[in-house]
């Protein structure tokens, strides 16, 4: 355990200065956001839907001041508290969405890559179709339908976002499974009579799983943007349920037309900083965890079609959307 930790540290140290600093800065920022999200009830001066205290209503669109450092909204809500509670919502939704899509995507990818045949072909076609679909529209339609079916909320929104990211894990995992399947150690396992289940779980999963943290981190950043986009269009978390940055920005559109900046600036900055942090953390992780990938990344050649299935998916998943 200790040796392993030391080895990881050694890899961190041996990577270039730039990726290392990316890793540190990104990681620290994400950590700060997570702590803020967890400690929201302690840090936030007010509740996310609180518009008065001690019997007096907060000012409407009040300038940033001592009581409200980030100002107040048109509904007299405290912007600072909304931003802090928004971090909590973002964390909840994104963790759920990433975990859901990871489980589904990795499982489907392993099965598809290992079993092959018509099952593989059907799954690939389905996933390609999902991937080709304008992702925001997919999430909108899903949360539109899901909120009709099971009501809106954190889980509904997370589910809508999940579907968007399943194909990415699927592609990455299927690609590595297919190349790993033919490797001598898997063949050896098969020869000594290992069951398919054992091969998948013990040999393939362990080999494939290393590319997941990078994709998961980058997807988390992307998922924050999708969540905010949904909120901005009115299809995310409803305002009575929790504070959500995208919804706040939607409300800020009319404020911006009146020249009021604080209702837009702070939630927008929160999204931007968090997504930048997650992106550079993902890029840093990419270089540290996967030195082979780093070399290949510089030389990966993207050709259209399904031929580029082994390394390209990692690249494809890395592209910001």
């Amino acid at each position: 355990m200790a040796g392993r930790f030391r080895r990881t540290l050694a890899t961190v140290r041996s990577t270039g200065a730039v990726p290392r600093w990316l890793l540190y800065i990104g990681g620290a920022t994400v950590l700060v956001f997570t702590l803020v999200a967890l400690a929201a009830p302690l840090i936030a001066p007010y509740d996310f839907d609180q518009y008065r205290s001690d019997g007096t209503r907060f000012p409407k669109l009040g300038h940033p001041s001592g009581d409200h450092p980030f100002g107040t909204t048109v509904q007299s809500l405290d912007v600072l508290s909304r931003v802090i509670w928004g971090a909590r919502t973002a964390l909840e939704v994104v963790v759920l969405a990433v975990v859901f899509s990871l489980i589904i995507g990795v499982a489907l990818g392993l099965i598809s890559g290992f079993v092959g045949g018509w099952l593989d072909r059907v799954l690939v076609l389905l996933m390609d179709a999902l991937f080709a679909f304008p992702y925001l529209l997919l999430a909108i339609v899903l949360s539109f339908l899901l909120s009709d079916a099971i009501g809106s909320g954190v889980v509904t929104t997370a589910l809508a976002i999940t579907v968007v990211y399943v194909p990415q894990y699927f592609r990455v995992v299927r690609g590595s499974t297919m190349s790993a399947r033919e490797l001598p150690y898997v063949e050896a396992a098969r020869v000594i009579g290992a069951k398919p289940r054992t091969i998948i779980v013990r040999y393939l999963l362990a080999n494939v799983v290393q590319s997941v943290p990078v994709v998961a981190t980058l997807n988390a950043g992307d998922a924050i943007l999708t969540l905010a986009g949904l909120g901005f269009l009115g299809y995310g978390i409803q305002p009575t349920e929790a504070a959500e940055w995208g919804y706040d920005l939607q409300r800020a559109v009319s404020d911006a037309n009146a020249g009021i900046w604080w209702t837009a600036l702070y939630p927008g900055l929160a999204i931007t900083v968090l997504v930048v942090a997650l992106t550079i953390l993902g890029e840093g992780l990419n270089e540290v965890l996967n030195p082979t990938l780093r070399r290949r990344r510089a030389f990966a050649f993207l050709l259209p079609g399904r031929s580029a299935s082994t390394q390209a998916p990692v690249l494809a998943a890395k592209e910001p959307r």
Partner: protein
Amino acid sequence: MGAVRSGSLARYIGTRLLLAIPMVWILLTMVFVLMRVAPGDPVSAALGARLSADQLAERRAAAGFDAPILQQYWDFLGHIVRLDFGRTLTDNRPVTDIIVENGGATLTLTLAAVILAVLFGLPMGLHAGRRRDKPDDIVIRLFGILTFAAPVFFVGLLFQLFFGKALGWLPTSGQASPVVQATVETKTHILLLDTIIAGDGEATGDVLKHLVLPAVTLGLLTLGVLVRMTRVNVIQTLGSDYVESARARGIPDRTVVVRHALRNALVPVITVMGLQAALLLGGAVLTEQTFNWPGIGNQLVDYLNNRDYTAVQGIITFFALVVVLISLLIDIINALVDPRIRY
């Protein structure tokens, strides 16, 4: 030689077209299933509050919702093949009308955004790739990350606040001033073209002014991706043997970079930009909403808010087809440019 080449190209395009058909079919089926698995009845969801039970039943029959599900599915596919995207439930308007009337605005916005992104993104990516890990490379990369990380609507709001309100330089809402909108005769449904056809320079200027902020906002979204892709591929081609041998033969650096490296770096870049079509359409919906831009995305959001299932189904289907079509075109362009793809 020529015959062989064009033969393999034709074969490639043919195969590619054939491959697109199952894709389209799956997309259509997905849209259909998605819109039907929702519980309850779309007609009452959209109009329940406004009509009586008899009227609702009549509307349901008119929209074909009383037919067996397979019949509905078959009708849906048959209509799409004839480019009929159905009628809206709430105002009984053909979806094709929405596409024609509002498509011009969306097309203007997305094209302007792509042009801006290519105009600035390619040189930036090329420069960053040539000066790998130098300070300017790092700055450009950070800029690329930033343009991707900042939500389009946030960037749009900042632009509105700064260029629209604080400086008062540019309009922040709509596609043109109300006067222009009212006076210019509609011919192409593309307002910019209409003002040019009308020969009204002032109106053209007005439309262009309205276009600047939304186009830059949406353009920035694509710019980041383009910069990153160009950079990675330029680095890769600059490290390849043929670039080295070109350098060894004493070919000037400029020529090597532009003729040898950039050209070859562009194929994957074009491919990725094709994949970005989905991103661009999603971004367009958000940008249109931010700037009150009268495009298809704006209509989609309106119909979503009115819970108009058939309108949403029609517009989504159209968007999905556009994405498939763009990726098809991109692949064909790539095959024309790069003989390796068509074998």
